[in-house]
């Protein structure tokens, strides 16, 4: 991404910024608008925010509109992306062509790491399932379709379980929904497991590197239907479990077997990180997941996605800060780092491949780039 123009976006009235092709460091005090800036970059790429699903929150007070424009270069070509929001109407234009929202998701992929990603480790299974679903959908369109079908079957089946029917009729009505639940459910489980294996292959080395080879991260899929065998056996097992749970399901009127109940176990040195890890360890694990996601996109597209790292340095010790910088200078990706603490001691590593921006209450000042220090 070469440049960004904002109008009435969050606390920016009007702002033009020219970015560095490699590392962009956005510094400034709390509440000055650092996260807002990378939120705008994310919005251009994904056509939604990573902080809210309410577009109107993004419009600067007290307005009802915002405008974001970004110039991207891709394979020697330049693309102009413009998004304007006005009273609930969203208009996305790429190089003079009107696009639908979410249509260009693969065009300029980004991966964001924000403080909220700590929740992936800390919260309940639903948060981790959400992460997995987003991650796998991004790499595999088919997964997204299967997941959607699975959820539809689940809703239908749960509704059926709530109906007052005699047992024989209910059994008969459940049969075809059981088939579909098993069918889509097994595909969902299979693809998730496969992707988690690949994710772990990337996340584990990054985590080791961050901890100076002192600690080990592993990922494990916890499935309510779990089998080491191939797809056919998974189907049999799924059916067996459904039958076993029939009584309870009818009593509780809800589906109690399937990937909608599964979890991802994130383990540091053989201990469940959710329960036993420190804040910094959890953050390192969350970062490793995000970097692994970026690496998988790199393997798929042959190019690194744009990395947006919001407040990535807080809560990390100096060694980890150094290693993050070291990692980022070693890959060929454009990244954006926000930080409210001075990073100067760490920037020596970066040679000249960066630019520092200073943000002050909704105004970005070009501070210095790598050449001048």
């Amino acid at each position: 991404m070469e440049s960004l123009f904002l109008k009435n976006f969050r606390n920016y009235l009007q702002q033009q910024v020219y970015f560095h092709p490699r590392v962009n460091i956005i510094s400034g005090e709390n509440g000055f608008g650092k996260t807002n800036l990378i939120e705008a970059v994310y919005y251009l790429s994904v056509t939604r925010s990573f902080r809210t699903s309410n577009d109107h929150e993004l419009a600067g007070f007290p307005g009802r509109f915002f405008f974001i424009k970004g110039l991207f270069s891709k394979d020697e070509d330049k693309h102009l992306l413009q998004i304007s929001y006005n009273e609930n109407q969203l208009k996305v234009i790429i190089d003079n062509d009107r696009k639908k929202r979410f249509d260009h998701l693969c065009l300029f992929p980004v991966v964001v790491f924000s403080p909220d990603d700590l929740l992936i480790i800390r919260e309940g299974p639903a948060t981790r399932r959400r992460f997995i679903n987003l991650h796998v959908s991004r790499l595999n369109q088919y997964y997204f379709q299967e997941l959607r079908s699975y959820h539809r079957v689940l809703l239908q089946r749960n509704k059926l379980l709530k109906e007052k029917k005699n047992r024989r009729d209910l059994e008969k009505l459940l049969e075809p929904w059981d088939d579909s639940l098993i069918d889509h459910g097994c595909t969902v489980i299979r693809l998730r497991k496969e992707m988690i294996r690949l994710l772990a292959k990337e996340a584990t080395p990054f985590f080791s590197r961050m901890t100076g080879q002192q600690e080990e991260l592993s990922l494990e899929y916890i499935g309510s239907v779990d089998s080491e065998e191939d797809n056919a056996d998974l189907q049999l097992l799924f059916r067996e479990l459904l039958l076993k749970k029939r009584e309870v399901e009818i009593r509780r009127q809800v589906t109690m077997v399937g990937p909608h109940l599964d979890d991802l176990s994130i383990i540091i040195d053989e201990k469940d990180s959710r329960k036993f890890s420190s804040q910094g360890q959890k953050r390192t694990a969350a970062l490793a997941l995000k970097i692994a996601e970026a690496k998988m996109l790199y393997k798929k597209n042959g190019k690194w996605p744009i990395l947006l790292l919001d407040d990535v340095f807080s809560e990390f010790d100096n060694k980890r800060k150094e290693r993050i910088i070291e990692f980022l200078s070693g890959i060929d990706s454009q990244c954006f780092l926000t930080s409210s603490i001075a990073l100067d001691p760490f920037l020596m590593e970066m040679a000249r491949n960066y630019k520092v921006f200073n943000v002050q209450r909704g105004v970005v000042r070009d501070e210095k780039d790598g050449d001048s220090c």
Partner: protein
Amino acid sequence: MAYPRALNRLVEVLCRFPGIGPKTAQRLSFFLLDCSREEVVAIARAMVEAKDKLDYCQICGSLAESGFCSYCSDGGRDRSLLCVIQEPRDVLVIERTGQYRGLYHVLHGVLSPLDGIGPEELRFEQLERRIADNHINEVIIATNPNVEGDATAGYLARMLKPQGVRVTRIAFGLPVGGDLEYADDLTLSRALDGRRDM
């Protein structure tokens, strides 16, 4: 904008058509106002006539002008073959392929607990009776390739197989979750060819 009352009412009524929003409704209204009185009456009459004259075929449930549809009354069609479809309009989709020579059975919907639609709401019983009373070799189920269409097919297969009839599902090369209505003729011809046993 404040429209005259009669115009407002017209726009409101047109909005009830599927796929027609206020803007299109407005355009249609102004079109009607530009028409001569005779033209408008002709349009209105065509609507009422269609409503009065068209009914569902007593045998298969597709659209018919007098008790029985043209397919059921056509002696040249293969009476041992039934194609089960969701909606009356799907008949036209299958006919368009020019490949199918059997008869139809329209369910008028699919199983969907969320919408309160169970077997009683659909023309399942008629289908069972039709198969019991006639010599039918094969039932091709052509409900839409989405979750509800699949479940309906599964339910029907279990229901019909004990009657000794071959039950097949049309093999979709269609986008998953799609609608029969939007399938192109070639895909649909292939789908009819490559149907699989259930």
